[in-house]
């Protein structure tokens, strides 16, 4: 891990009418880090993330991602990041292979590269059986893994994961985190939102958002010491209850 | 029952939250009635025609003046050669050319008759035919004036009465049609989309596992649209009475009952479409592509059914709109009661029961 900062946010704010969803948050993420972005439902995690990936314009404050400003250089950011949404937004009515081809294609990969990547993924995720099946017919766990791999197709500097493990069993979650580690080891920065506190333990650093504000930011170990509790769950409960 | 009312309330909230759809839902009938009432007519008016006058004498000038004075025609241009006729038609603006023979006036005096060609651009046969008839009428008129002094004996004089619509207003014909089309499409489309939407988003399953019975779910989804359609029907009737002076000669109460019946027929059709479609897109395409043109064309809304080829006349019987248009014209314009309309009413009722039965059966199969 280097000290190069790939995400920097300063007083980043988003308001919808009179409602402030994200309230002047500031933080930074180092290259190669697994950064956990925690918070209860509705705390503003997803909104904050959407500003960082350039599909929502900040109301105030500024942020840079991969060295580019989120307000003015959103399109440049998009070349450097991968994103996996809560909805695992693959096309249900295309096969796994067709999804890979499509997303590879619009990220500018060549035919040869796409072919190579597809072969790699089939090998790695053991997709031989399902590669020609419709995504809509696959179990959730499969969709997640494929969706994550697709977000890494173009070797992005940073990958944003929005509650990637919602709704799957602990074994699948475990496997999924192994994939995350592998990506991080290859130098990809991982920015992940979750509300599973056990997953928070796997992160290098976590921030905890409450009502649009970042209330705590440190490594899981330091946070536990700071709040004098045994696990991240208790850290979270303490913060959330105020 | 309380749960059921709560469910209906939820459906109303859904509808009223979506301001844009609501605007269309109520703006549509108003826009269409206004368009039909004021703008759209299959009569002809101010048609651009050209004149090719080989004679250029007093008589042709008089005839040209007569034609020019009528509200039907505007003489747009004079051409000099036969070859120009083709050219002006190809441009598309000129719809007819009057071609007076050489020495027209002279022939009339010496031979007792003279010839004029009425050349029409018959790519639109209806307009061509009408232009031809109207021009002919003007010429006949002129001829009668010329022959003022000659007395005609043994005359049969038809005394024609145009009943139900003495001024031959187009809007009398279109109001029942527009009302039918709107009620049909709005009801069928809205229900089919709203049910298939719940299917697509997965919320239908949640509703079906709730203590509400499947029948209640469907009725609950349909009730708000019955209300909306009734409002639409009321707006249309009120507008046609007060803006276009279309009478309601029969009973308003019967009109209301028949309208509700037709709304329910359309809703049942919507339910049936939703059972057959997995996605909103399919539901919409079936209800729009599948219903719009057949309803407009085969219901007698614009085109008279009696003039269609026999197979189409038979097919038109399965279009619910056809029967409702007959009922509407009967009540509004002819002022008849149920004793004249019981047959049509029974047909609609039968169609409704059939559609409901069929969708109930289809839903059951799906649920088992």
């Amino acid at each position, binding site marked *: 891990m280097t000290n190069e900062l790939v995400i920097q946010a300063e007083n980043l704010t988003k308001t919808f009418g009179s409602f402030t969803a994200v309230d002047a948050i500031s933080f930074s993420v180092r290259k190669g880090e697994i950064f956990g972005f925690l918070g209860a439902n509705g705390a503003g995690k997803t909104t904050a993330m959407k500003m960082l990936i350039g599909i929502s314009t900040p109301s105030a404050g500024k942020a840079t991602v991969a060295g580019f400003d989120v307000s003015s250089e959103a399109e440049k950011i998009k070349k450097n990041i991968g994103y996996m949404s809560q909805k695992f937004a693959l096309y249900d009515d295309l096969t796994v292979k067709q999804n890979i081809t499509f997303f590879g294609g619009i990220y500018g990969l060549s035919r040869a590269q796409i072919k190579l990547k597809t072969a790699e993924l089939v090998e790695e995720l053991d997709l031989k059986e399902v590669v020609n099946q419709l995504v809509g017919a696959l179990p959730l766990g499969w969709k997640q893994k494929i969706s994550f791999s697709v977000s890494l197709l173009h070797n992005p500097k940073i990958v944003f994961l929005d509650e990637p493990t919602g709704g799957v069993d602990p074994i699948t979650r475990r496997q999924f985190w192994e994939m995350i580690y592998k990506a991080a080891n290859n130098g990809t920065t991982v920015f992940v939102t979750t509300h599973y506190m056990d997953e928070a333990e796997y992160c290098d650093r976590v921030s905890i958002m409450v009502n649009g504000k970042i209330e705590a930011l440190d490594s899981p170990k330091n946070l536990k010491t700071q709040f004098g509790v045994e696990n991240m769950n208790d850290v979270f409960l303490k913060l959330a209850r105020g | 029952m309380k749960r059921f009312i709560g469910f209906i309330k939820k459906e109303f909230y859904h509808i009223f939250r979506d301001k844009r759809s609501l605007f*269309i839902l109520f703006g*549509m009938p108003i826009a269409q009635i206004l368009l039909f009432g004021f703008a759209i007519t299959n009569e*002809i008016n101010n048609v651009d025609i050209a004149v090719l006058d080989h004679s250029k004498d007093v008589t042709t000038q008089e005839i040209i003046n007569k034609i020019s004075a009528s509200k039907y025609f505007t003489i747009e241009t004079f051409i000099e050669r036969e070859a120009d006729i083709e050219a002006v038609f190809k441009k598309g603006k000129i719809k007819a050319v009057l071609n007076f023979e050489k020495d027209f006036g002279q022939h009339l005096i010496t031979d007792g008759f003279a010839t004029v060609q*009425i050349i029409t651009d018959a790519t639109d046969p209806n307009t061509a035919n009408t232009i031809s008839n109207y021009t002919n009428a003007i010429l006949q008129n002129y001829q009668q004036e010329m022959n003022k002094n000659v007395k005609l004996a043994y005359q049969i004089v038809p005394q024609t009465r145009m009943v139900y619509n003495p001024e031959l207003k187009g809007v009398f014909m279109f109001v029942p049609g527009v009302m039918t089309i709107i009620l049909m499409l709005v009801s069928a489309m809205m229900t089919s989309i709203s049910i298939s939407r719940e299917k697509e988003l997965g919320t239908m399953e949640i509703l079906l596992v709730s203590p509400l019975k499947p029948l209640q779910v469907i009725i609950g989804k349909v009730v708000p649209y019955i209300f909306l359609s009734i409002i639409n029907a009321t707006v249309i009737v009120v507008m046609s009475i007060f803006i276009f002076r279309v009478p309601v000669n029969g009973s308003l109460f019967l009109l209301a009952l028949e309208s509700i019946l037709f709304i329910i027929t359309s809703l049942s059709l919507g339910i049936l479409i939703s059972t057959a479609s997995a996605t909103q897109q*399919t539901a919409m395409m079936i209800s729009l592509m599948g219903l719009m043109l057949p309803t407009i064309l085969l219901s007698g809304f614009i085109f*008279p059914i009696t003039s269609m080829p026999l197979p189409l006349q038979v097919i038109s019987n399965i279009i619910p709109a056809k029967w409702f248009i007959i009922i509407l014209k009967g009540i509004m314009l002819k002022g008849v009661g149920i004793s004249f309309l019981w047959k049509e009413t029974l047909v609609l009722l039968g169609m409704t029961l059939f559609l409901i039965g069929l969708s109930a059966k289809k839903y059951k199969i799906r649920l088992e």
Partner: protein
Amino acid sequence: MKTIGYIIQKEFRQIFRNKAMLPIIFIMPLFQLIILSNAATFDVKNIKFSYIDHDHSAMSRALIEKFNTSSYFNVITDFPSAALANSAMLSGEVDVILEIPQHFERDLAKDKYAPLGITINAIDGAAAGIENVYISQIIQGFNRNIRPELMQQGQASNLMKSINTIPLFWYNETLNYKTFMVPGILVLLVTMITLFLSGMNIVREKEIGTLEQINVTPIKKSQFIIGKLFPFWVIGLALLSVGLIIAKLIFDVPMLGSLVLMYGYTSVYILVILGIGLFISNFTDTQQQAMFISWFFIVIFILMSGLFTPIESMPKWAQTITDFNPIKYFVQVMRMVMLKGSSLTDIMPQLLKTLAFAVIMNGLAVWSYRKTS
């Protein structure tokens, strides 16, 4: 360019995967073209005619026989009384009642004048007008035929001057409605399919959530829009082609003009419709809304297009509105090129306006498509 290729490939795959939609896109419109073109006729035929004969004379029977032999009338029945005939008209069994008064024959011979009662159901005003013309023609013809028989010698007069009118119906001598309606209905179907599909397309991805995934990719707005448009553009042209074949083979619609011109114009026209569709898609949140708005516009476009009713008959203000109706130009061009063989110079005004619409609508569609909120 390559990126666009991937989007196009994906769209085509999705279209052809959806087995429920394929028949709706390809079969239903053509089926409707074949069936409904037969329905769209303003011809007035098979008029439901009935009569009340109070005279029962040779002349009254001869007059009725005239109606009987006319191809326009279906002589349904004779009614003994006006009350029964009126009741039949109320119930819709008859549309025209001819009432021959008592002493019709006698009066005509004696008074040289006899009235005839005619009642026409005029709810369909246009049809009633035409029915009236047919009825008058038959009666006048009958009148002309019997006049010499009734006239006493020496009364004959040939002092009358008459204007001989020869009606000529160019491009469609038999006044065949199908040659007029088939190109129009084809236009309508091509328009509806392309508008509905493109109008729902982007908003569908919005609703499912895949649009967000697209928006975080570096793809350019224009690339995305072009990639989305292209497949529907192809579908539109494919529909046109099959429609033209049907027009030729089944309806024998003449195709006097150049096919290249027709396709060239249609290519531009479909772009307009797709631009409108995408524009609607961008401004709506759900497919339901998109569909409603498309529907609203298509109905107004159809009614104001001159497809079923002539534009020249509309009041000036309404004619001004139709200048902004792309369907109007498509209907005009198809009819002009197919039926009259109009050339590029003839359709230039329509082509230029359509081109302007295409640029404006697609400009708006690209402009209004936001990758960020």
